[in-house]
């Protein structure tokens, strides 16, 4: 047999049909659904009189526009249009008989945190969701990517997706990370190297010692942002850590089925002599704690650096940088560690898991956020929140002056009431620093949870290594 990459193996194992021109129907093992990108898809099914083909493989949870403040179970506390969207999901879940975690359920949370937490996401699976950060699930050695609403409808109706195969890219991170450098820094650094379009047309497999050393949660952070590099998906080969994470989760296989599953999962790795279309090797030692300075996730620099000069770029990027520095209110040459922030947001599907909260708590323990600064922690799920309370993290956050919120997407995209005002500047653990992403005119700097916590203490972008 010819050598294969991990992506090749999963692809081959899910090919339900292949036409002569190479157009394929790829079978989908898990379909995750949220309230924003699904109403039109369910409506389409209704109009065509079609059922959901595999309701057992379809899991829905509202997350994008649910409020994260107390009393949110009362629909009166939601804006009319958000309420209608969540009510539509309630109704669709019921009518079509799919798995559902309503707002009132402690297991509710961000769809990409709930899936792995409940054991829906497993190695070797194909996972899709009407959301670009579906790439997160690639951390399990699953082929996972975002789709549009028409494709959501297609998967609901056929449990397959029309696909053509992507190319294979390997991103190898060799060696060990320095203290203070995290999974978030890896993933931002990689995007800084490839650019936001560098991954277009590829599935990226992350590998190497620094990736193997990461926990499952760290791997999820890395894969989460594969889409920010333009890739179809990011993927990491499963190993003992993966199996351990999955074992015992509510929807993971048990007994003999577990044994059979692990036996197959152990075959899921890229063969030594597999062919790669592109290989990128990065030394872990070269990665420092990073922040973004612009309005594209590729605008990444070490915290010790200064705001770049537009003239130092090429082509269309010159104007783009000029525009983004204007939007961000930054001057070339300004030290990044001098940039003052008025808001800190810790949460999102990138960094809303328990280890992220632990990392932030470690920095915040016994300290206070800077006077006048608004700081918010939004756990990724109700279960993450409960665990953080049990571990005493919630008290650390509250004592430090953070708002301790309920689970949801919150200020990652500001569809709920958590938004920046024009000109406000936020250190955020989320994944997009686009213009207006966190609220019209709002300015976003992406960074790791530990770096966000450090910024909350000093009121400016701060090198976490100075505080550790």
């Amino acid at each position: 047999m010819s050598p294969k990459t991990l992506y090749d193996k999963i692809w081959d194992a899910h090919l339900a049909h292949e036409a002569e021109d190479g157009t394929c129907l790829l079978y989908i093992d898990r379909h995750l659904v949220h309230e924003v990108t699904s109403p039109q898809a369910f409506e389409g099914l209704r109009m065509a009189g079609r059922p959901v083909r595999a309701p057992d493989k379809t899991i829905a949870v509202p997350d994008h526009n649910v409020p994260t403040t107390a009393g949110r179970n009362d629909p009166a506390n939601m804006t009319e249009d958000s309420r209608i969207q969540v009510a539509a999901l309630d109704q669709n879940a019921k009518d079509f008989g799919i798995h559902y975690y309503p707002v009132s359920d402690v297991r509710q949370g961000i769809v990409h945190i709930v899936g792995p937490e409940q054991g829906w996401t497993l190695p070797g699976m194909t996972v899709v969701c009407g959301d670009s950060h579906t790439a997160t699930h690639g951390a399990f050695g699953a082929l996972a990517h975002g789709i549009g609403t028409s494709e959501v409808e297609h998967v609901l109706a056929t449990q397959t997706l029309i696909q053509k195969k992507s190319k294979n890219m390997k991103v190898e991170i060799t060696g060990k990370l320095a203290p203070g450098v995290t999974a978030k820094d890896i993933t931002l650094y990689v995007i800084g190297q490839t650019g936001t379009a560098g991954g277009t047309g590829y599935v990226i497999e992350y590998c190497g010692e620094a990736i193997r050393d990461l926990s499952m949660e760290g791997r999820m952070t890395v894969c989460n942002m594969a889409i920010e590099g333009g890739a179809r998906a990011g993927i990491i080969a499963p190993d003992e850590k993966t199996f351990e994470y999955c074992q015992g989760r509510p929807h993971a296989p048990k007994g003999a089925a577990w044994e059979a599953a692990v036996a197959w999962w152990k075959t899921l790795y890229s063969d030594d002599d597999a062919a790669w279309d592109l290989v990128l090797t990065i030394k872990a030692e070269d990665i420092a704690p990073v922040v973004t300075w612009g309005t594209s996730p590729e605008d990444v620099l070490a915290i010790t650096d200064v705001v770049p000069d537009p003239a130092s770029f090429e082509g269309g990027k010159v104007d783009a940088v000029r525009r983004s520095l204007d939007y961000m209110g930054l001057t070339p040459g300004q030290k990044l560690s001098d940039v003052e922030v008025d808001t800190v947001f810790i949460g999102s599907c990138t960094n809303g898991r328990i280890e992220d909260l632990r990392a932030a708590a470690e920095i915040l323990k016994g300290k206070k956020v800077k006077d006048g600064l608004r700081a918010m922690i939004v756990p990724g799920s109700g279960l993450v929140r409960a665990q953080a309370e049990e571990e005493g993290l919630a008290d650390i956050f509250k004592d430090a002056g953070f708002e301790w919120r309920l689970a949801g997407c919150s200020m990652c995209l500001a569809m709920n009431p958590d938004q920046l005002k024009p000109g406000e500047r936020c250190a955020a653990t989320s994944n997009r620093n686009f213009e207006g992403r966190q609220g019209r005119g709002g300015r976003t700097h992406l960074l790791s949870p530990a770096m966000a916590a450090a910024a909350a203490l000093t009121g400016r972008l701060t090198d976490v290594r100075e505080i550790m």
Partner: protein
Amino acid sequence: MDKFTTLSGIAAPLPLINIDTDMIIPKQFLKTIKRSGLGANLFDEMRFTQDGAEIPDFVLNKPAYREAQILVAGDNFGCGSSREHAPWALLDFGIRCVIAPSFADIFYNNCFKNGILPIALPQETVDILMKDAEKGANARVEIDLDAQTVTSSDGEVFSFELDAFKKHCLLNGLDDIGQSLQKVSSIDAFEATMAQSRPWV
């Protein structure tokens, strides 16, 4: 879905790279449960002030481009979120074709599901078409999907590449789901095999 065969229309120049889907349709407009009506908020934050007044400098607010059916833009158009609201908003405004050096993957696929043709051309060609688009309302660009060509207002013809299956669906306005359901026996067979080999799924 409407068929796409040929198009002769005004092209609006938008010479920015990395135009993301948050720019195309900001999140506050994603709360709809319909596909229609989003054109009013296409490029909302670039097109309107916070009080809803038009920003006269923005290309689609200029008299020459109000009826534009084609957009010419920079690299990596449509990056960011998977929201199909982006093509819905373009379509609702009247845009049927976007020309750029490259597109983000999910956005590119979403276009075809909505009768919009995204055309990727080399930077030099896009530069020529961008100049052409800057001429305003009298410069009509012609697109012929079957022949896979773009013709500038000066009569210069450029060929573009396109996946044969996507072209076929767009030319005939075909519904993907209907087509895939014709292969339902393959899907049934696949599921039956999988129930044996990977029963835990």
